[in-house]
């Protein structure tokens, strides 16, 4: 019996000693749900290579992430937009200096069925289609058929880009079909000859045809040089210039053979 007690005691002590060690390198990442998949993929790979670091990741949106970095409740804030003037002012008042790191680009490409003769749409045409003003393909140089408009659920980052860049804050009309993921939009467009949808660049496949926008093809190159209109940079913010585990993690994110490779796998455009 005594031996048993001893074992239990030792184990308990060991557990308590081990706990602080295991959380020695602890990183908290918070913010945009668009950047979330990148953060998750990179963090998984990072933790595999650095088992003594534990990273906790949560969403909550860009606004919440930047608020958390200003308040100091997170180490890294994910954001799908640049910091706003109002937020910079707030940070200054609190004496903190958020530092932005560009980690990837988001590029959203409009797609149609491969049999659709339409090859290019202008931003205005896309907007009119998604507002429900243009209802027929023949109005934009296609067959005499009703356009089936496919959109994303309103809380997705992809929808956010579309709403910001194409719709210019106007609303997608309620008759648009809803699909809950990039993959589902691609699937629905591949099965419908008269559908139009939009997906992240990384989800393009041979069953759908990517349209050029304002005659610009959506690709890594056109996204990075800024000519493709439906794209935006994605950021990670730190409080002040990063040090220690934070800088190590950010370097990992930016390494072409590590983090940036995973950025591509997550369906985004890598920086290099």
């Amino acid at each position, binding site marked *: 019996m005594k031996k048993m007690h001893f074992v239990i005691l030792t184990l308990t002590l060991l557990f308590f000693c081990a706990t602080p060690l295991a959380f020695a390198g602890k990183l908290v990442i918070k913010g945009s*749900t668009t950047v979330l998949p990148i953060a998750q993929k990179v963090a998984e790979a990072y933790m595999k290579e650095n088992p003594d670091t534990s990273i906790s990741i949560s*969403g*909550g*949106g860009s606004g*919440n992430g930047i608020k958390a970095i200003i308040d100091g409740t997170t180490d890294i804030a994910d954001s799908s937009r640049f910091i706003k003037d109002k937020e910079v002012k707030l940070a200054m008042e609190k004496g903190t200096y958020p530092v932005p790191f560009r980690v990837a680009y988001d590029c959203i490409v409009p797609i149609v069925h491969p049999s659709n003769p339409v090859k290019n749409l202008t931003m205005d045409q896309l907007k009119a289609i998604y507002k429900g003003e243009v209802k027929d393909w023949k109005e934009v140089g296609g067959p005499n*058929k*009703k356009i*089936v408009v496919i959109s994303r*659920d*309103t*809380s*997705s*980052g992809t*929808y*956010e880009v579309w*709403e910001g860049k194409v719709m210019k*804050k106007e*609303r997608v009309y*309620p*008759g*648009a*079909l*809803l*699909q*809950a993921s990039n993959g*589902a939009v691609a*699937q*629905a467009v591949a*099965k*419908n*000859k*008269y*559908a139009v949808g939009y997906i992240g660049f990384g989800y393009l496949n041979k069953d759908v045809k990517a349209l050029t926008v304002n005659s610009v093809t959506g690709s890594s190159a056109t996204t990075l040089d800024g000519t493709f209109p439906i794209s935006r940079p994605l950021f990670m913010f730190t409080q002040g210039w990063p040090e220690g585990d934070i800088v190590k993690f950010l370097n990992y994110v930016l390494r072409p053979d590590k983090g940036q490779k995973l950025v591509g796998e997550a369906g985004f455009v890598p920086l290099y």
Partner: protein
Amino acid sequence: MANIRQIKDRGMNITFFCIATASITILFTISVFLFVEGLPIFKVVSVKNFIFGTYWYPTSDPPDFGIFPMIIGSLVVTILSAAISIPLGVMTAVYLAEIATVKIRELVKPIVELLAALPSVVIGFFGMVIVAPFLQNILDISTGLNIFNASLMLAFMSVPTICSISEDAIYSVPANLKEASLALGATHLETIARVILPASISGISTAIILGMSRAVGETMVVLMVAGGAAMVPSSIFDPARPMPASIAAEMAEAPFRGDHYYALFATGIVLFVFTFIFNIVAEHIAHKYRQVGEASL
């Protein structure tokens, strides 16, 4: 000694009481949670505007939280799927219980019940990849992801429930009722229509309501197949967005405890009220038409 036996007995009673109340407690906790998380939305939008509002733009600025198109979507899909699944399910049940030989019955019944074992995501995928393009081509409509397709898929899912429970009800009609009817000179058809069905109406109604409440709460199929347009449909070939699809599509990325999050939970409350009403109706019908003895026919 008797004392120990009594204590044992008491112990057993308490144990079983606890087990029996566990599920009630869980249900109660979930409902409380649902209301706690859903009700705050009514500080932002009135109940009337929430239920009868026709615009659902939860993330735009200012947001609109109107779930009327979703409620209509749920109702239309459920009613249409009931219109398909009730005749199919009940007639299959009548055939299996009354007309089929024992051999066929033993072969067909497990197969019909196996249909219930199909995961809903498989049915949804079938509807999306096979049925939708088929409907598009055959009917020359703009999209196959519509109310009709969703109702058809939901009907597949509720047929096994309806068939299986109705069949049990029909089968358990006392044989002497049937024999008496036949002895009075009624044909087999007349016996089924005038004696067997009325005698088992309580069981059949329960079956139908259970099948329908499965359809109204089903999420994966409507998310994949109904199209998801948040507008009041004008025909059964228009896309619609039933309530569960709306919740499933948006919940994952709605900011925790934001207005959008509350609105989705409030949609859940409406859905809960719907299934609750369904169950009460089922209970009521089952009670009212309960077959008490043979004299009440």
